[in-house]
């Protein structure tokens, strides 16, 4: 399978040249193939979320290079990164990061607002995803009125509305019970079967051992310590 993500000796520092300087990533080199389902595994502070942010074009590395579909993105200006983020990635955050006082449908459509997608197309996509995730009836309810599992589905629907090729999930099961966690992984498995690349940062062994996962990358202190080979 062709490579979809490649990092070359990337380093990430926070508060560089200050007394509280932190080296969050150290010479990380990694390749991810298209359609692969991969877990970044490690304890808190190991650098999983930082690596996920850099891969997802939410931040730039201090040094080193990142390639998304053979295109180097690590030095691109902000607006190009935004475009890549919008067109290529769907994000599922640990805290869900939904806007609580608006409806589920509005939350789901938010990524499309600045894209200029027609209203007809927006509605079509939203209906399809809501139906697929079995939350069509809750579309017009405020997020704050939904259950934890329903909120999780809204977050997944929002991640999928742009029809991304890569799904990035940061500790997606951290706040879910085992039933909801299994349901989430089942959805991700289906998406993976459709050819979407899935990258998950987690320290939950239930996720790492799931049938969805092709490879587990182990991290410690900002370095990859195992699982590089598929």
């Amino acid at each position: 399978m062709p490579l979809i993500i490649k990092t070359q000796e990337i380093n990430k520092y926070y508060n560089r040249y200050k007394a509280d300087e932190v080296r969050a990533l150290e010479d990380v080199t990694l390749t991810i193939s298209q359609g692969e389902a991969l877990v970044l595994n490690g304890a808190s502070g190991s650098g999983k979320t930082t690596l996920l942010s850099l891969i997802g074009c939410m931040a730039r590395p201090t040094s080193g290079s990142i390639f998304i579909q053979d295109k180097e993105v690590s030095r691109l200006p902000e607006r190009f990164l935004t475009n890549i983020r919008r067109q290529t990635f769907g994000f599922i955050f640990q805290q869900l990061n939904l806007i609580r006082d608006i409806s589920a449908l509005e939350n789901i459509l938010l990524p499309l607002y600045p894209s200029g997608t027609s209203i007809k197309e927006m509605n079509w996509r939203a209906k399809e995803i809501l139906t697929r995730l079995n939350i069509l009836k809750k579309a017009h309810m405020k997020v704050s009125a939904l259950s934890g599992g329903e909120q999780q589905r809204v977050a997944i629907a929002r991640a999928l509305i742009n029809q991304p090729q890569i799904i990035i999930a940061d500790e997606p099961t951290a706040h879910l019970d085992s039933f909801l966690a299994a349901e989430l992984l089942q959805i991700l498995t289906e998406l993976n079967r459709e050819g979407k690349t899935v990258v998950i940062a987690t320290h939950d062994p239930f996720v790492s051992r799931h049938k969805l996962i092709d490879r587990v990358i182990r991290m410690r202190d900002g370095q990859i310590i195992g699982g590089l080979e598929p």
Partner: protein
Amino acid sequence: MTRFLKILEYALSSLARRKFKNFSIIAIYSFTIASLASILLLTHSLKEIAVNVLADGPDIVVQRLTGGRHDMIPASNAQAIEKLIGVGRVTPRIWGYYYDGLYQTNYTILGVHEKLPPLEMVKGRMVARDGECTVGQGVATTQNAEIGNELLLINSKGIGHTCEITGMFKAQSNLWTNDLILFSQDDLQRFFATPDGLATDIIVEVYNPKEIPVVAQKIKQLFPDTRPVTLNEILHTYQSVFNWRSGMMLTIFASSLIAFSILAWDKATGISGEEKQEIGILKAIGWDTSDILALKFSEGSVISVTSFLLGISLAYIHVFLLGAPLLVPVLKGWSVLFPRLQLVPYVDMYQIFTLGFLTIIPYMASTVLPSWKSAITDPESIMRGG
């Protein structure tokens, strides 16, 4: 277009989510605009009325000064002035102020003369003979008098003088006629006990308006004890008085502007954690910095334009429909006759534009700048629950 509409839709929904905060801002913002705009509208309208009233006024008013105070002027001076080149009709006038202790109001009493500006009547007719008077609507309201009633005033000898009211001037939009009582010239002379051959002042008509200052100078040379006051000087005085009064009011209301600025600054520097998080989420899911700015610009525009239009509308209603009850006592003048003043809506668009510029732009800046600061940071923090 879809992008703009969807961002605007989201901006409106975002404003609706923070109802209390945004309604408070709109209320304070509108009040500030309404206060400032009321002063500007009223001042401008009063100045325009003064200009219109004085447009029919005499070109030169000649007063006599004795020992630095205004004194009666010999009416015979009029003949000498009339002989000056470029001078038309010259008319000695008798007039004065009358304090009505019963109603604690001031009236202006004037004798009918040939150069009286055209006065619009509400009803009735002008004074035709001795024993009659025509009054302004303010006087009639204060005295609770109608046409045909008798008006009792105390003359300069302390004796009661009655006159039959024959007509009423329109007070609407006319500050000049509101407190006016018009007598026949002879009646007035007797009322003020003015000695024969003397007048309060002399009014002079000049054929060519450009020659007014020259004629005034010649009158001064002819009669060194007089002070010729030109129409332009009166106009400037009115404008200065109203500007001074409005300046005083604006200074007072500047405090509300300062309070509003503090509020705006507080908003500017105090973008809430919730708003920061929302900006982070939007960026993380694919919104560009320019999209965030468009959103915040839309929010700021909705608030500031709504408040501005609301403030201007309130000011318009206050000044032109309600007669500026909150400002008239300060801005209108010394007269204590305050009828419901129906001001003619003269609006200076330049002033409105300036007011808009000075309030909308700073507010927009105070809304957009902190959001921009928040929007240019990496959305990475949102990955960490920030």
